[in-house]
């Protein structure tokens, strides 16, 4: 699903965010990316979502070569990846329902199909009763679950999460982790960037540790 070969990323400022990363994550796998702040976790995710291009090396995600991906193909590429953000990135002026429906509207999903899929996604995260509310009226954990519902409503084969539990207490974190485990169980490839060790310990899945832009540890596939 994800294959990095000798990937380097240097920002225009001259900062080397990633150095010689070799990484292979199979379809259906679940892995955690960890490391100190500035180790390159976010940069790795930015490369996978085609926000940035590698400076050197080959990167392929979901069968597409990211180094050669034309600009106009990027939107279609991103539709196959669900992304969960630490700050949720929800639209404050739209209801929970509209937020979750957005990826379906963007991809031009059949009108009759949308309500069914939105409600299925909201049911998965346990927020079916809050579909008419605005995100600001929800708690942090609930907002994150709306973000997760939006990320999976399109049924993407790959789910990325950037510090999904960064602002949550341990009980809410566990609930969020259970959701990811559930998606993984259903065959979705899940990649979570986090420095929440509790989360990693509890999940007992593959751990990839970055240190100053280099691959410091790869536990290999577990479970």
């Amino acid at each position, binding site marked *: 699903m994800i294959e990095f070969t000798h990937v380097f990323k240097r920002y225009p400022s001259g900062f080397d965010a990633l150095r010689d990363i070799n990484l292979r994550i199979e379809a259906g796998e679940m892995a955690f990316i960890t490391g100190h702040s500035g180790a390159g976790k976010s940069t790795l995710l930015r490369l996978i*979502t085609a*926000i940035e291009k590698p400076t050197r090396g080959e990167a392929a995600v979901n069968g597409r070569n990211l180094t050669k991906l034309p600009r*106009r193909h990027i*939107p*279609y*590429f*991103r*539709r196959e990846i669900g*992304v969960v953000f630490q700050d949720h*990135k929800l*639209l404050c002026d739209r209801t929970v329902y509209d937020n979750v429906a*957005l*990826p379906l*509207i*963007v*991809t*031009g999903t*059949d*009108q009759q199909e949308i309500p069914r899929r939105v409600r299925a996604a909201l049911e998965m995260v346990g927020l079916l009763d809050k579909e008419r509310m605005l995100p600001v009226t929800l708690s942090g954990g609930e907002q994150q679950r709306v973000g997760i519902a*939006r990320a999976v409503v*399109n049924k993407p084969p790959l789910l990325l999460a950037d510090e999904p539990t960064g602002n949550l207490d341990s009980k809410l974190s566990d609930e969020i982790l259970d959701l990811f485990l559930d998606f993984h169980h259903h065959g979705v490839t899940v990649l979570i960037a986090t420095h929440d060790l509790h989360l990693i310990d509890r999940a007992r899945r593959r751990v990839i540790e970055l240190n100053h832009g280099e691959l410091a540890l790869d536990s290999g596939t577990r479970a």
Partner: protein
Amino acid sequence: MIKNYFLRHAQVFFYTLGQLSRTPLATFLTVAVIGITLALPAGLYVALENVQQLARGWEDNGQISLFLKQDLSDADIEKLSGNIRKLPAVSWVDFVSRQAALAEFKKLSGFGDALGSLDRNPLPPVLVVHPAASHTRPEALQSLLKDLRRYSEVELAQLDLEWVRRLYAMLDLAKQGVLILTAGLAVAVLLIIGNTIRLAVLNRRDEIEIIKLIGGTNAFIRRPFLYSGAVQGLLGAVMAWLLVGLGLLILSGPVHRLASLYGSLFVVENMGFLATLALIGTGGLLGWLGSRLAVGRHLQAIEPR
């Protein structure tokens, strides 16, 4: 599939209307500025059309006065008149005898007594030539005038409405002026819409970023802004139309009074159906284009971080 496409566009359209009505003051201000900007050339256009209409009325009465030589006999004049009447460009010919001309002059000029003291009638006999309906354009009148001057019996041939031609020339000039002004103001409308949309794009920066992250194409992101620009342009054009109509309503009373003083039944006309359509179409098109230019430029700059 096609039904879905139209449905999506309709949804974006109504969503745009909703967005615009949520900020009524900002929308109204933009629409008002566009309205006033478009009302200027539209108003001038209507004014020119009316002047031209008025001039056309005079031109229909275009006639050529032939002042004949003093010593012609009535038979000579009769023969000349007959010849001229046969010209294809001529509808009919009136004869004003020396006596009739004198009587008319006495009556109209108020110099009746002074003229009475003259021992002979100083006025020449006159043939008034009315051109055929097919020959009322200035060029046709000019060539008829040239033909009439060739007759030896004619002392002086004068096109009474020489000044109509000058008016026409001035109107042509004014039209060009309106055209240039229109082009300039069209650019102004583009800039107004462009700036409004630019602010809208920047205001919704976060939203655009999110839509880009979940796979929204540029066309998808652009669409509501294009609708917003086109709708505001359209509303601006409608406002311009109303402003012109209001101006004409205010002017129609005084114009009617002035016209009646000249014994004319002239009434001001508003712009016709096609001109209205053109105005509204132009408004919508300028709105769309201004929005397209602004969104195109700013969308590139907004990339997910």
